[in-house]
């Protein structure tokens, strides 16, 4: 089972309660939540689903990525037709292997009636994990977007049916509930309460009227039935773009991804800057935490460890939960701010710094490393004097950065600082940015470092 991949593997996040944040990301409520109204479905449930399945099924696709040399599928996902002339929507992560390595892979569709053929890529939207593809044909059955969903007016509690081909078992329909946009998330995602499984990625979530409300994209591994859809209006917008613009050639694909990632991070970091930072107190220190509500923050302490720790560490870690899938072995878009206030219980000054070193020495960024996708990190470290010695301590700081090989202008950047004013007390702070432009990284890091101060 493990050697198969379904739709690039549905993207999943795991989040253990009480443990430092999860690995992935979903949506943000940028608009006011629509008021909940009663469902308009009047027919008995099973009959409704039966009708929807029968009406929708002909428009569904299975999207297969085949290894060119072997002619066998290496990953599968779903999709659906949105025009009579063969335009279809799926997830970017379903076609990502083909987009990034068109010489190794090719794309194929299979329809419920057993016909299959080649797919052409027309457009991608990295930030919303969408792609528009085309298959040859005329008078094809197709789905339409739900106008209320496109307008963002679909009421919470509305029944939505997710469709697709889970685990290559055949086309299925899954009944679930529309729960509005995920709150406190920068990227917009619909919270769908229903079982989405690998292989259903890119399939439609349709209303009782058979109109598309969202596109299946991911689920959480640590919850039950907590799944996510890309809002229909994002797909409608991309479709509009695909119709207007000339199709994306594979030669431009990487540049296009690069361009979209750069634009996304520009938007994200400007929004972050705009939301501002609030000074949070850590013992005698004060350090910045983002005021943006799309950060998911977790506190951690070692106070209750046994045997009793000889230095106490209380930390707070805030994660933007905004990862963007690029390929199986690389993602972008995440940012993390961590502060750990450490004080000695009965360690002497040397032992205390040995304790601190565990956190400092991990600064050179081993996290999600891929030799193929990222360059070796370059680091620079030194003691840094505060702008005003009366309000802030001297810091030991290490800056590490690595570049994305495939995408010019994008870097992973990490800044770690340790206060250098006391023997048995210190604040270890870290800013880790994924897929950021050097300029935005520097600017945020400067601000971050400048706001580490004393409370007195």
């Amino acid at each position, binding site marked *: 089972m493990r050697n198969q991949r379904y739709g690039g593997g549905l993207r999943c996040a795991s989040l253990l309660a009480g443990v430092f944040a999860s690995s992935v990301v979903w949506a943000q409520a940028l608009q006011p939540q629509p008021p909940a109204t009663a469902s308009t479905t009047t027919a008995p449930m099973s009959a409704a689903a039966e009708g929807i399945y029968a009406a929708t099924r002909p428009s569904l696709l299975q999207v297969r990525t085949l290894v060119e040399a072997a002619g066998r599928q290496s990953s599968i996902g779903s999709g659906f037709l949105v025009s009579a002339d063969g335009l279809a929507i799926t997830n970017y992560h379903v076609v990502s292997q083909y987009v990034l390595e068109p010489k190794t892979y090719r794309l194929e569709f299979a329809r419920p009636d057993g016909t299959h053929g080649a797919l052409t890529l027309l457009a991608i939207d990295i930030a919303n994990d969408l792609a528009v593809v085309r298959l040859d044909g005329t008078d094809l059955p197709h789905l339409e977007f739900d106008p209320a969903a496109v307008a963002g007016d679909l009421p919470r509690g509305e029944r939505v049916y997710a469709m697709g081909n889970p685990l290559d078992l055949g086309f299925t329909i899954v009944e679930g509930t529309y729960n509005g946009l995920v709150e406190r998330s920068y990227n917009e995602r619909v919270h769908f309460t229903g079982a989405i499984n690998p292989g259903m990625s890119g399939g439609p979530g349709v209303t009782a009227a058979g109109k598309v409300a969202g596109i299946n994209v991911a689920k959480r591994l640590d919850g039950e039935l907590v799944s996510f859809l890309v809002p229909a209006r994002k797909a409608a917008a991309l479709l509009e773009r695909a119709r207007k613009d000339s199709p994306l*050639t594979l030669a431009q694909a990487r540049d296009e991804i690069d361009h979209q990632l750069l634009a996304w991070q520009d938007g994200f970091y400007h929004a972050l800057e705009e939301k501002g930072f609030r000074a949070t107190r850590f013992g005698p220190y004060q350090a910045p935490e983002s005021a943006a509500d799309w950060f998911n923050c977790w506190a951690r302490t070692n106070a209750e460890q046994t045997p009793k720790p000889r230095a106490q560490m209380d930390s707070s870690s805030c994660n933007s939960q905004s990862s963007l899938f690029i390929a199986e072995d690389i993602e972008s878009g995440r940012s993390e701010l961590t502060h750990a206030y450490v004080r000695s219980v009965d360690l002497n000054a*040397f032992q205390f710094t040995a304790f601190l070193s565990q956190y400092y020495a991990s600064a050179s960024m081993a996290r999600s490393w891929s030799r193929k996708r990222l360059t070796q990190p370059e680091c620079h470290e*030194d003691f840094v004097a505060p702008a005003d010695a009366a309000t802030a301590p*001297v810091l030991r700081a290490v800056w590490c950065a690595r570049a994305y090989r495939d995408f010019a202008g994008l*870097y992973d950047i990490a800044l770690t600082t*340790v206060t250098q004013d006391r023997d048995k007390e210190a604040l270890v702070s870290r800013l880790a940015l994924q897929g950021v432009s050097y300029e935005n990284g520097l600017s945020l890091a400067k601000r971050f470092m400048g706001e580490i101060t004393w409370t007195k």
Partner: protein
Amino acid sequence: MDEVNMAAANAAPARVGDGAEFVWLEVLGRHRDVITRQRITSKAITVGRAYDNDIVLDDPHVAAHHLRIARGDDGAWTATDLGSVNGVFVEGDRARRQHIVLDGATTLQLGHTGLRLRRSTQEVAPELPVLRSVPRWPLALVCIGAVLALEWLGLWLGETGEPKLIRYLTPLLSVAAVITVWTTVWGLLSRVFTGQARLGVHLLIISAGVLAFSLYQQITEFGAFALSWTALSSSVYVIGWLIFAAVCFAHLRALGPSRLPLKAGAVLALAALGITMQHLKLSEWRSTYGQAATLQRLQPPSLRVVAAQAQTAFFANDAALQAALDKSRNEEPADGDGPGEMGGDD
């Protein structure tokens, strides 16, 4: 061996020739140590494996009648090959000879055996005084004690959890084991090549070497922080290999004072090889796991010696790294398919 020499000497009490000068024929073994020494009393002798020779050799690569050595009218001794298969050579020369005029320095080679003619006028090396050197092991023990003290200090300063006795016993055992094995090996080599084990000297050499490395390691750990000079601690292995080479050289010198430049060259080559290998291994490890060399150990802030940089200067340095990253972005990764794979004709 002494007995043989004595016997040979006693067997030939008479003098040859003009009486003022007489000669000895020395038979040298495979390793060029004198096996037997015989005083020559006649004007000509034969050498070979057969028992009718004056000097009988047991070397299977020597002919039954291999060599005749005769004194000419002018007093010079000449060796003549009697028609052997393996011939006669002057040691250090590859040319086979039929006749060889012998002086005190020439060593003949027959099969695997050496022959040397020594005249009574041959000068001998001055008498060596018997060395009554001070014992070296007390100093060696002091060094070992210092190494252990340093190790224990390092462990204690780095102790962040519950102190465990086993952690403090480990260096005691490992230092003792390494030094014992190492000293024994060199003692054996010494015994084989010089006849004396000189364990005290070898023990002192390795103890001093380990102490030097221990000290250097501790100093760099502090120095790297105090001077904000990461390379100091990340290149400890370079000094480690140099100390190792110096230790090997000292051992070799203790084995004998000959060919010192050759020995120095060999240990330097060893050090260069070690440093290169470790450097490659380290950079391979770094590129496999995407790690950069950063300071591994902080120290109390009061140990800082260098001045802190201004924030603007710090970030200016960070900004400068971008060029290096963009350069390595364009280089192909060591494995896998990079951007070059893209091609992108479709």
